[in-house]
């Protein structure tokens, strides 16, 4: 399928439109909430919750015998919440650290979920097939009603975020202090965590248990690279998450046999990679460039300062000296000298160098600045 044909289809084809909208909304809400998880250093919480949701899906099916998405997701929600509570319980009641608690609950619940799934598969009932789609997700099964539900939760989440923005911010930054100001930190805590659990559960059908945490973390990690403001970070994470949904769906729809969930996650990972390298302030590339530039600048400054010391005692600052003299100075290089000439700080003639008056002034400023700092 060609891209243009695809774009036409998004507007005309019901299924494709539903999936595109669904993944976009899902990406936006998980990106938004993921920012909070990342800033609380609870990146792995999402992973644990999504894995903990699996037995809930299986048990909901065993009890009701229905494969209705909403019923199964309620099961997922309940077991996801139980998992979260247990994680909180383990960290507060034992000496175990949160990473241990997360790993423990994740593998325990996931193992139990897989056990139930294999048990269900062997049941003599034609109805059982298809539950394993929750492992890796199957965006094609999204219905319009699912998208409406996601939109409703996203709207609710947005409303709560706007209302409790300052409470969320202070809880994330300094929980103890928030407590002394009289805020019920437990309530805010539960509010944030509940929405994270809700968003994860909503995404299980599309992205699946295994990859769901990437939907939380990747947009937030990418967004953090571009801004130093919490508001902008949350907004950007929502935009990046939504875009990952749209592009992921487009790529998987135009290529055969590419499952949507993993493609969305890969697109989000590309965003992360791009941000890590190219963001102007925190990106690796510009950091490296700044480092090299600063080092080169310092090298030149050192050479200039050395020249200044030689020239200082002469009446005529532009009195020529031999280049050989500079060999005594360790940071000296021909390349550096040429750069100083380019900057019009130094003039070369034969084997002699001389400072221009411009160069002398620059060196003087440099010298004053450095001594002032000391």
């Amino acid at each position, binding site marked *: 399928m060609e891209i243009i044909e695809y774009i036409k289809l998004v507007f005309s084809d019901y299924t494709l439109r539903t999936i595109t909208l669904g993944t976009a909304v899902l990406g936006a809400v998980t990106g938004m909430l993921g920012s909070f998880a990342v*800033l609380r*250093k609870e990146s792995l919480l999402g992973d644990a919750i999504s894995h903990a949701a699996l037995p809930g899906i299986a048990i909901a099916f065993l009890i009701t015998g229905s494969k209705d998405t909403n019923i199964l997701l309620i099961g997922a929600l309940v077991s996801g919440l139980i998992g979260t509570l247990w994680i909180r319980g383990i960290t507060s009641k034992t000496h175990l650290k949160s990473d241990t608690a997360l790993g423990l609950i994740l593998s325990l619940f996931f193992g139990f979920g897989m056990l139930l799934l294999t048990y269900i598969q062997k049941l003599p009932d034609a109805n059982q097939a298809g539950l394993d789609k929750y492992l890796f997700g199957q965006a094609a099964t999204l219905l319009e009603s699912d998208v409406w539900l996601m939109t409703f939760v996203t709207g609710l989440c947005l409303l709560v975020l706007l*209302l*409790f*923005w*300052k*409470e969320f*911010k*202070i809880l*994330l*930054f*300094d929980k*103890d*202090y*928030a*407590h*002394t*100001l*009289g*805020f019920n930190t437990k309530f805010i805590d539960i509010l944030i965590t509940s929405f994270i659990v809700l968003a994860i559960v909503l995404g299980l059908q599309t992205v699946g248990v295994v990859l769901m945490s990437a939907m939380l973390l990747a947009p937030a990690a990418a967004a*953090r690279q571009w*801004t*130093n*403001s*919490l508001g*902008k*970070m949350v907004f950007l994470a929502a935009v990046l998450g939504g875009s990952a949904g749209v592009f992921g769906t487009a790529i998987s729809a135009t290529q055969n046999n590419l499952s949507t969930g993993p493609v969305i996650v890969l697109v989000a990972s590309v965003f992360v990679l791009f941000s890590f390298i190219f963001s102007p302030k925190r990106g690796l590339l510009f950091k490296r460039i700044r480092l090299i530039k600063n080092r080169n600048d310092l090298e030149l400054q050192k050479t200039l300062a050395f020249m200044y010391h030689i020239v200082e005692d002469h009446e005529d600052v532009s009195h020529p000296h031999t280049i050989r003299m500079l060999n005594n100075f360790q940071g000296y290089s021909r390349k550096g000298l040429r750069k100083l000439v380019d900057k019009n700080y130094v003039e070369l003639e034969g084997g002699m160098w001389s400072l221009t008056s411009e160069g002398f002034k620059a060196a003087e400023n440099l010298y004053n600045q450095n001594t002032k700092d000391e």
Partner: protein
Amino acid sequence: MTAIQNKHNAVFGVSMQRLNNGKIFMEKIAVKVDDLTVAYDYKPVLWDIDLQIPEGVLMAIVGPNGAGKSTLIKAILGILKPIAGSVTIFDKPYKSQRKHVAYVPQKGSVDWDFPTTALDVVMMGTYGGLGWIKRPGIKEKKGALEALEKVGMLSFKSRQISQLSGGQQQRIFLARALVQDASIYFMDEPFQGVDATTEVAIINILKELRKAGKTVVVVHHDLQTVPEYFDWVTFLNVKKIATGTIKDVFNDDNLTKTYGINYKVSIQK
């Protein structure tokens, strides 16, 4: 204190002190801690602490590592739940008096890479007065800017907090507490890891607070500077060893009792 004075304190919630000239004067008790006991596991971190902090003093809490200094402040502020004991602020339970109390936590207790600016952190000091949902407005911003100016950080207001030095971060925390415009300030090691210039700047602010009649309680590590910076001191090592004016209790005897070793520093008084 005599039995009569004790009885008087119990009735009026004020403390009487005998001054040099023999007169007794009364002052209000800002913070009153009764029978406070805190434990993390089986081992008590604080044991049966009774403490009265008069209004308007600048008090240091000193003691060795693990003596429970930070824990005492956290328990007073309700961040930690004590096993037993009660805390009253101006004779009323702490919970109803929160707006009178400001807290400067240890600098290391937060992640300074959090995406926010210096001004934004100081603005957080206004959140308590605003209560739930309401956003800070022009008035709050003005207060925050004034506090930044007081700590000499106004020109850094838009700086991302990770770009600040340790001393500057400490000043930001101090400014955040100043915005609260409280009557009682609890500070957890505000001098930790700051350079001499910042230390002087901070102590000047503390002295200004005292001049304005505020009560300031500081967890402090440097015994040498205690008599110079503070007028009251509390010695703590799980139990309360002593509390009182520098003149009355800052002596080798109490230092030895608190730190366990024979403390023979003749610190200048």
